[in-house]
């Protein structure tokens, strides 16, 4: 690939270079991401002082706006990095010299749905991290506008019965919903990988028991199990959110564990594991340093697909009023708030649902794309 002069446009406006050289999906995606960055700048800059130092006289300090500030620069750097990559591709890297991840990236780029999914996920991440700059109002402030007003130019997603701005509420809700999905999947991915690797590596009776337990957990209706635990433990206050994350994480690891076990069964017969064993390595070291890194690809795929599923389960929990305890609201609990006014104020319930669909679809598309790129054997067709 030689450097196309048109691609240099990307150095000025990231995305334009991709667009001009015919890479529409990346071009549009990057332009949208740039748009969010600029929007955050325009909306956030005028009130950045009050955001970073709320009630400065009292020595107020809020963490989230600072994270937002840092991630703004992070996302900007990332955008320009990809634009530069596109403008000046490394010439002398032949196929043999590419690392495995570079090969995966090449394969992934060919998958249209996957790339679109990736851009959607990046957009979601940006919106989540930049929320303090983007949200026009305080999500919990009453009467920022007229009560029960339908979507309009000044209130894009309308207001609820207390006159709270729905757009701001949804943006702040996104932060909770997506973080829970992400954290729970980190827990379930780690746990599942270790469980599956132990089960496959030790074999014998240990394996039988562990597989049986996996199958047992798999045959439980997840929501019923989660509901029962939540119902018995009754989370309350800020600690409730951690219980939800933990419970969601510990009820979603079975798929990962099964796949890792299958891989480890064949990996452990290979020479490098035999060598490690002959050298007297501890089983824990073999599992963590040799087996799991070799089985990481399907774990990533499963985790990505799991994020969508976890977001759905969390939303269902919050919808039933048994998720993250109030006053924190998530997409699911906002749908629940809107249920009462389904007939008169349908937008309250409609928008968060659409956002859930968008988020889950994005993660599923990204996951499918990653699966096709990482492991041809797992391909669905």
């Amino acid at each position, binding site marked *: 690939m030689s450097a196309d002069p048109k691609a240099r446009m990307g150095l000025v406006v990231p995305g334009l270079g991709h667009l001009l050289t015919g890479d529409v999906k990346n071009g549009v995606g990057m332009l949208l991401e740039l748009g969010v960055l600029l929007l955050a700048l325009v909306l956030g800059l005028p009130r950045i002082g009050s955001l970073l130092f709320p009630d400065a006289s009292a020595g107020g300090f809020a963490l989230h706006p600072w994270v937002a500030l840092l991630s703004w620069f992070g996302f900007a750097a990332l955008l320009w990095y990809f634009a530069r990559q596109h403008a000046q591709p490394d010439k002398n890297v032949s196929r043999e010299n590419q690392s495995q991840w570079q090969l995966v990236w090449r394969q992934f780029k060919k998958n249209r749905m996957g790339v679109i999914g990736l851009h959607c996920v990046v957009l979601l991440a940006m919106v989540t991290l930049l929320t303090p700059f983007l949200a026009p109002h305080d999500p919990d402030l009453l009467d920022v506008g007229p009560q029960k007003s339908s979507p309009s130019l000044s209130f894009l997603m309308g207001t609820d019965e207390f006159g709270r701005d729905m757009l701001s509420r949804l943006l702040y809700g996104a932060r909770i919903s997506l973080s829970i999905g992400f954290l729970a999947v980190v827990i379930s991915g780690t746990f599942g990988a270790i469980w599956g690797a132990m089960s496959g590596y030790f074999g014998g009776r240990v394996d039988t028991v562990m597989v049986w337990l996996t199958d047992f957990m798999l045959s439980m209706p997840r929501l019923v199990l989660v509901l*029962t635990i939540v119902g018995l433990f009754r989370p309350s206050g800020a600690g409730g959110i951690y219980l939800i994350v933990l419970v969601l994480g510990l009820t979603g690891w079975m798929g990962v564990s099964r796949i890792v076990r299958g891989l480890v069964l064949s990996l452990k017969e290979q020479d490098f594991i035999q060598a490690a064993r002959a050298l007297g390595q501890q089983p824990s070291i073999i599992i963590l340093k040799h087996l799991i890194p070799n089985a990481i690809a399907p774990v990533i795929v499963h985790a990505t697909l799991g994020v969508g599923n976890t977001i759905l389960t969390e939303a269902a929990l919050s919808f039933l009023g048994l998720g993250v305890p109030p006053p924190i609201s998530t997409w699911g609990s906002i749908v629940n708030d809107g249920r009462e006014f389904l007939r008169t104020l349908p937008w309250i319930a409609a928008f968060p649902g659409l956002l859930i669909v968008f988020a889950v679809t994005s993660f*599923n598309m990204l996951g499918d794309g990653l699966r096709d790129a990482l492991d041809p054997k797992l391909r669905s067709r």
Partner: protein
Amino acid sequence: MLNYILRRLLLAVPLTLAVVTLLFVLVELAPGNAADKFFTPETPPEVRELIEKKWGLDRPAHERYFLMMKNIMLSADFGRSMVQEKPVTEIIAETLPNTVVLSLVTLLVVFVVGVLLGTIQAVRKYGLTDNVITAVSLFFYSMPEFWLALMLMLVFALKLKWLPASGMYDVVLYEYLTPLARIQDRLMHLVLPGLALGIAHSAGTARYMRSSLLEVVGQDYIRTARAKGVSERRVVFRHAMRNALIPVITLMGLSLPVMFSGSVIVESIFAWPGMGRLIITAIHTQDVPLLAACFFFFAVLVVLGNLLADVMYAVVDPRIRFS
């Protein structure tokens, strides 16, 4: 065949024991005890003692565990509901059939719609129809059931008024209807919950059916059938379909837990008096015995459903029976 079913049934026994054990552990780990909600800080200790004794909470943990195991496994006794003051089994007996009816209707929707869409997609592989259905399925597959249920309710029940919004039958008119009209009334009430539960799962099933059928169509015996001049319709529906359905049946058995999760939500939205709504009620009223029983019966339903799927699997694929 009978031998096979018996073997599978025996495997289900330790599974049920594990369910009871898990349940006990969860109840024990939970902060406070099951009777806490009856007390205020002003409750005299002797009253507290009396109430705890009534619910058997004064005994040591291992004794309660074996008692619970014995009661459930030998006499299907889950104790009495702490709120409704009648045996839990009585309450379950009223609601379980409703959930089973809803689930069967959903399964029917999932099977018919899923298989049909999947087949259309496989026949029109990579065509416009295929791509459109794939995109639409992905959309519905990613949709939360509660939201789909609410939107269906908003459009078809509240705005268009074509279908009833909640319940199993019309509370006011049902008494005065002729038997035929009663059946119609009940069917009308089934449509929205059935669709809300079924649509998302049909999307998944269609996807599976598509790849399964494509795999079968690539095999030699299909080429043979085509070569000897069998019509395309017959090739797809008679020759390929039979083998393509085998993995789909397994998938439907495996998706049973997911479906019951969905029924919890859909039942509570459409006020369907089933197990799903019951478990929510049990949680809100902190009725531990009822909650435990709901959990147990959901798990047993899944075990039975999987057993049924296994048996079906063995019926359609004789190779399974002998391995």
